[in-house]
């Protein structure tokens, strides 16, 4: 089976409640997105950074194929792709993080940029960990943050992918942000 057919049937199977379909789907989506992200973010010639959401759209067309695009499949794909994108970004952030700890004795001309990147990497990892705690309390809210923050989806796109109203996503987003912010600043006070 070609990848288009494979991804489409996995999406359909997952939509029907087959949990194994997700396990097969995730690596396919992760690898494709990772490859695309590396390519997209290596170029950056004219300073216009391709947003994660654009990559996810492109990956969908490539993996599932435009002609097979049912509304349901598209929503399921976006949910998987945002999780994959989160993993990609967190893995990158973590590698940067450990790079810092490991290189204390190694000195090859550095500059200020590095410090800022470490700072941001630490924040991405902290957010990811706080998000795992939120998921245990309220899975949908963690999904909203994953889609908005890591996937770059708009409020409307998030609502569509999750099959809930825009008002609900707005409310979830507001509370989830607040909750995460407090978690990252040291938990309930």
């Amino acid at each position: 089976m070609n990848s288009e057919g494979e991804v489409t049937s996995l999406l359909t199977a997952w939509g029907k409640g087959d949990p194994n379909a997700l396990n097969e789907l995730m690596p396919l989506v992760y690898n494709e997105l990772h490859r695309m992200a590396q390519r997209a973010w290596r170029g950056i010639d004219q300073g216009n950074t391709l947003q994660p959401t654009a990559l996810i759209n492109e990956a969908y067309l490539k993996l599932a194929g435009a002609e097979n695009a049912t509304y349901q499949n598209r929503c399921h794909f976006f949910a998987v792709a945002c999780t994959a994108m989160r993993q990609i970004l967190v893995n990158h952030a973590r590698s940067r993080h450990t790079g810092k700890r490991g290189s204390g004795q190694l000195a090859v001309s550095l500059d200020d940029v590095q410090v800022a990147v470490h700072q941001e990497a630490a924040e991405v990892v902290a957010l990811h960990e706080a998000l795992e705690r939120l998921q245990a309390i309220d899975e949908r809210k963690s999904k909203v943050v994953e889609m908005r923050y890591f996937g770059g989806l708009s409020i409307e796109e998030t609502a569509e992918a999750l099959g809930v109203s825009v008002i609900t996503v707005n409310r979830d987003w507001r509370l989830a942000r607040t909750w995460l912010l407090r978690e990252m600043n040291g938990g309930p006070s």
Partner: protein
Amino acid sequence: MNSQAEWEEIERLFHQAIDLPPNDRQELLASASAPIRAEVESLLRADEDAFFTAPPVHLAADLLDREPSALNPGQRIGTYEIDSLISVGGMGEVYLARDPSRTPVALKILRRHLIASPQAVDRFHTEARAASALHHPNIVKICDSGESPAGLFIAMEWVEGRTLRQLIDQGAADLSRATDWSAQAARALAVAHAAGILHRDIKPDNVILREDGVLKILDFGLARLEGPVRLEPDSIGASGTISGTLSGTLLYMSPEIFRGEIATSASDVFSLGALVYELWAGRHPFAGETPLDVYEAIECRVIAAPSTLRAGIPPEIDALILRMLDRDPTHRPSARECCEVFSRFSVRT
């Protein structure tokens, strides 16, 4: 952790309270149980901080944006195999890599899009080839250079140690160390100048001291690849700080380079003069609050003799350092002369 019902009540109260003025919030929350009330109040306090207000993908996309190559362990660049990422700089990344005989090398990748023109790529190869001809214990050896899908690369001798920047930041070096380090740095410069190669960006970040006391200068001839260094209005932030690479470089820049003239070996001597002044006197000769202060200091400040800042500095060294910092390039000593004077006082040589 809260039960599902508690969480739902927390959520409901949070959304009701968030749009109310503080006094009305009290009233609303008065009916809730103490733990729920505490949780909602804690969340309401957190909401007052501005966070995540920036476009949500900004931080994340930015992170990868600055790690565009993101080479993975095991990946091959030319004949080299990537081991791990060491640092990220304005022009690219530096990786620990292995050559075919498994010897560690530092692999510097220059992002292609940051290299201005085809001429700049040619210049890169010319400079790297010229620098690779330098064989000296005090110069980090360039082993190889080439092009790969990830960008231009330079393979360099792998050196473990600390930069002079790190050592200076830890406090003043004692005078015998200052003598030894100055002599080794001047020797590296003298050897390069004799071979017709300028450094163009001597600064403490480009000097590494190995654990065994051997000093090595990094990136000979490569500074020019970063293009002309000028004080652009854009590079000076509102706070008067300078962005990126310029901040490290500015303090060690000779007046003639500031004026946009061609670098000569005397320009390298000036930069080394600023560096050794800092080593000996424990203070930078041109320190200033803003780039303009620094600029003015380099152009106009009367430099205090190092001996007025620290006891025990021999008069010959004192005079030599001031001559290295002479505003007229033709009055500066050669790197060879500097090396001879410093070596006379050094116990190592």
